[in-house]
């Protein structure tokens, strides 16, 4: 896949029809139509996914991988079918390379605790970037502290783009891993991960990509990226919470020790010796969130019917519109002006704290996120404690961009 934004859609995207798939978008907040612009935190669920969850609980539920009865076999088939759907969604070679996790955070922790504890030693170095979400910082700090390893940080320029020359200069004989976000949750910058992976591999260093903010917006192809691990969450992808995916190269996953011990991850157990199941089961101890996994499969099916390229093109138009309108609004400062961006806009209103912005926008029915976006090192780099962030999904409209801008003017009026 390309890290460049997809060009504008050649045909009109029927947003009205798509919005009808999302019952929650009919909600009114503070007496006004909901304008939901917090999609980077969590996206909404279409009726097709809700229906799939209801159908599963109504007709198909039992525990998986165990009994020989009808319901267990039905549930197991649905669960494994979801795995195959997700395999295709990210173009993994094999379904067994797709591990169900509780979300991106667990996926990264799995790699840190399993691959990391096996492969990282005192004096080794792990490369992260200054734009990482805390979930792609803290697991590595915990590992580094345990092992006596060091975290190296790729800086960014003022636009929010990673400085690749510095990235390349960070490599040395102690470099063991690169773990980097695909798209910044706070600024929307799309990082040139393919180029970064190629460079790392030339030095024999594997790369984990935190795809939490990329999977909902770009067509992800793990073979084309040639990444070693790719983690993302279901609930940012129109799926349920509590489910996510860790893709791992089969050879790496096979060589890794289990992350959690329990049922479903074993081959045989005795008090003398336990042998572990093959991947992916080795990493799925205990009863998984079966319904959520099946729901995520339905969400991937739904997104496939729309087409990720079409989604990216529509969102890019929203980003262009919102960027132009906010840049033209006095007293608004945009943070993050990378050339390649997903539809995420962080901004500051002169003299007005983001929390006040968020509370007053909510009064206009507009839902934005305010705060440090779980990226405090990035906030320190930007010299701010917090920002306001509007993040768009394919079901957002140009009228909602207008509502955001009108809401911002209302906030400014209150503080004028």
């Amino acid at each position, binding site marked *: 896949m390309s890290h460049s934004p997809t060009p504008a859609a050649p045909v009109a995207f029927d947003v009205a029809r798509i919005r009808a798939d999302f019952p929650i978008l009919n909600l009114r907040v503070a007496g006004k139509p909901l304008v939901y612009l917090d999609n980077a935190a969590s996206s909404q669920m279409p009726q097709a996914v809700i229906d799939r969850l209801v159908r599963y609980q109504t007709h198909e539920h039992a525990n998986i991988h165990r009994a020989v009865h009808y319901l267990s076999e039905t549930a197991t088939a649905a669960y494994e079918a979801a795995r195959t759907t997700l395999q295709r969604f990210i173009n993994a070679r094999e379904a067994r390379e797709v591990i169900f996790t509780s979300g991106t955070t667990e996926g990264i922790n799995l790699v840190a605790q399993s691959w990391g504890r096996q492969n990282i030693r005192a004096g080794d170095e792990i490369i992260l970037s200054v734009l990482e979400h805390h979930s792609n910082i803290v697991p590595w700090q915990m590992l580094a502290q345990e092992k006596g390893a060091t975290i190296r940080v790729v800086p960014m320029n003022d636009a929010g783009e990673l400085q690749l020359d510095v990235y390349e200069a960070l490599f040395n004989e102690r470099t063991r891993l690169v773990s980097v976000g695909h798209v910044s949750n706070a600024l929307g910058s799309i990082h040139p991960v393919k180029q970064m992976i190629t460079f790392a591999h030339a030095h024999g260093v594997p790369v984990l990509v935190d795809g939490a903010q990329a999977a909902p917006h770009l067509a992800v192809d793990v073979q084309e990226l040639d990444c070693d691990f790719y983690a993302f969450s279901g609930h940012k992808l129109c799926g349920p919470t509590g489910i996510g995916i860790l893709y791992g190269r089969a050879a790496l996953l096979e060589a890794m020790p289990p992350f959690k011990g329990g049922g479903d991850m074993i081959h045989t157990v005795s008090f003398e010796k336990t042998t572990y199941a093959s991947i992916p089961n080795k990493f799925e101890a205990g009863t998984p969130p079966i319904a959520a996994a099946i729901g995520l499969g339905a969400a991937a099916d739904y997104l496939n019917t729309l087409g990720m390229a079409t989604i990216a093109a529509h969102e890019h138009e929203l980003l262009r519109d919102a960027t132009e309108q906010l840049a033209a609004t006095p007293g608004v400062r945009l943070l993050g002006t990378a050339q390649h961006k997903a539809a995420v806009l962080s901004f500051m209103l002169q003299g*007005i*704290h*983001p*929390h*006040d912005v968020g*509370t*007053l926008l*909510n*009064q206009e029915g507009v839902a934005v996120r*305010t*705060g*440090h976006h779980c990226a*405090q090192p990035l*906030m320190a780099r930007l010299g701010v*404690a*917090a920002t306001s962030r509007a993040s768009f999904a394919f079901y957002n409209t140009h009228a909602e961009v207008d509502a955001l801008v009108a809401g911002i003017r209302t906030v400014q009026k*209150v*503080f004028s």
Partner: protein
Amino acid sequence: MSADPKALYQDVILDHNRKPRNYGELAQPSHHAEGVNPLCGDHIHLALDIRDDTIERIAFHGESCAICKASASMMTTMVKGKHTDEAKTLIHEFVDMATGRVTAEASPHIGRLAVFSGISALPMRVKCAILPWHTLQAAFLSEPSTSTEADADPMRTAPGDA
């Protein structure tokens, strides 16, 4: 009590945000504390000069939202020149009102701080309003710092209150 945030952002709060009273630092304060809200990065420094249990001087500075800054500003004007026992009574009245446990009408000393009564309808913002009061309590206890998230938080509001 109003659920309308615009009613909360009324003139008195906006005025204290724009022109905070007792804003700055004190040379050689007898008591001081820093209050932080790690969830949003807000922090305020509070310094007091207490003589014979009377708050002779008080000043604050820091980075925060309008609600927090106005709350801090109005707090300093309310407690300056007061006996520390009166200030402690006010701390409890303010926190009880902001968390919705007691109405402004049932708070005998709350006075013009009643403008914050609407905050109880905005659970995510309650901490903004009470951070200065937490910090005042920490200063009285000679604790150098307090956090809205710390176990050591002297106010220890129950989960869900803030």
